[in-house]
């Protein structure tokens, strides 16, 4: 292995800086799980099809399995471990617990990070594929169950906890 194929980077995760020497092939998901000890993001499909690895990159939800770690230098990574503050779960996390937004839990960290990113997108007025009127001059699309299902379609749940996930997100959005 030559030096050309490795990079020394500073990776910012949940407000902490990690100095890492990485093979350029290292995905952000593997770097988080293996190098910085953040095992919240899960490896489901490893091909960008399941959403279990979802994290926030500068506040936007992305798939860490298709992100090369070296490309994340300079960005703020937030994993599920960084969602709660001061030892207290975020309201969206509390809603998942209260309303049973999971069964086995494997997809949950991705669902939570995705939900946080999705709610920010909705608050910014972004439309979705089921938004009837795309005109930016009208009122922002209301967040109903159909909107939540469409906006969260990148997060699969093989236990089929979708009804409770949708309820938890809608409760948080209210």
């Amino acid at each position, binding site marked *: *292995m030559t030096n050309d194929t490795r990079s020394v980077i500073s990776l910012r995760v949940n407000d902490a800086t990690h100095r890492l020497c990485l093979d*350029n092939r290292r995905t952000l998901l593997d770097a988080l799980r293996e190098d910085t000890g953040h095992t919240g993001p899960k490896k489901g499909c490893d091909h960008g099809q399941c959403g279990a690895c979802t994290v926030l990159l500068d506040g936007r939800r992305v798939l860490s399995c*298709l992100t090369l770690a070296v490309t994340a230098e300079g960005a703020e990574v937030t994993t599920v471990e960084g969602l709660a503050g001061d030892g207290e779960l975020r309201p969206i996390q509390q809603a998942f617990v209260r309303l049973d937004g999971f069964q086995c839990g494997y997809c949950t960290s991705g669902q939570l990070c995705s939900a946080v990113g999705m709610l920010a997108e909705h608050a910014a007025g972004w439309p979705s594929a089921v938004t009837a009127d795309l005109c930016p001059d009208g009122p922002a699309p209301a967040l109903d169950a159909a909107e939540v*299902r469409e906006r969260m379609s990148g997060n699969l749940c093989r236990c089929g906890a979708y009804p409770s996930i949708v309820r938890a997100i809608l409760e948080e959005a209210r």
Partner: protein
Amino acid sequence: MKEFAYQRASGISEALRLAAGNDDVRYLGGGTNLVDLMKAGVESPTRLVDVRFLPLDGIRQVPGGGLEIGATTTNSDLAAHPEVRRRYPALSQAVLAGASGQLRNMATVAGNLLQRTRCSYFADPSQPCNKRAPGSGCSAIAGAHHNHAVLSWSPHCVATNPSDMAVALAAFDAVVRYETLDGAGDIPLEEFYLPVGDTPERETALPPGALITAVRLPESAISPLSRYRKVRERASYAFATVSIAADLDIRDGVVRSSRIALGGVASRPWRARTAESLLLDGPATADRFRTAAEAELAAAEPLPGNAYKVTLARNLIVAVLTDLAASPY
């Protein structure tokens, strides 16, 4: 995945120099397709030149009334942009119909244009595939091809282009802008993707080493009511079986102009020029829409497993044009 060097380009000319004269260098945008293909061993670049930090993002008005979309603009930012939603709604709808929220946050406009087919044989290095390994044969023609092309394919390859965005760009006469070490150039989207012929591995008209810098949309469209409709095998997060971007200008019940492009039917977005010319100056009726759709699809050569796409494309054209004709202006 093979080892590779990684560099962030600090400027366009540096990016071009890093890629010059080396077929094994790839520009990296969002990586949503390239990184996955690298994992599969379909792509094995020796160097990635990261272009996402170049000043190529953002959407701006251009003199003459069009919009210029920077190459590294994410799909999310493109779809949410007020001017795109207001003037080119079919483009916003097309982008929103593709992939997932996470992928749209990562994917860039230029990467979207250059994404590769989702033909399962292309993605599997253990299978013959002329696009991935020229001369090895096409596994899809006699194999699983229910989601493959019905128009303008060749005995060498029957794969489709998977982009939703490119279908809307084709309907709007978009132009792809690029830079090379020898200067800049423009390619109309309709000429951007090469015919399949006997070189399915050659997909675009970009010169070697060229870097896409922007996509330019001409001054709007014929109406602010263009639309994109996508038929797929599940309600969300799936590639199109057939899709359509369309726009109609109707005055006094007569079609003054139209733009129709289809996705999922060919190796490139399929601009339906035959249908458009048949519709011109005729009454905007469902019968005429059907005649035009059938004329467009007369050239279709479906395989045993994908003949349904011809019927589906016809019905989709009729349905969307009928909806547009009934929309209040």
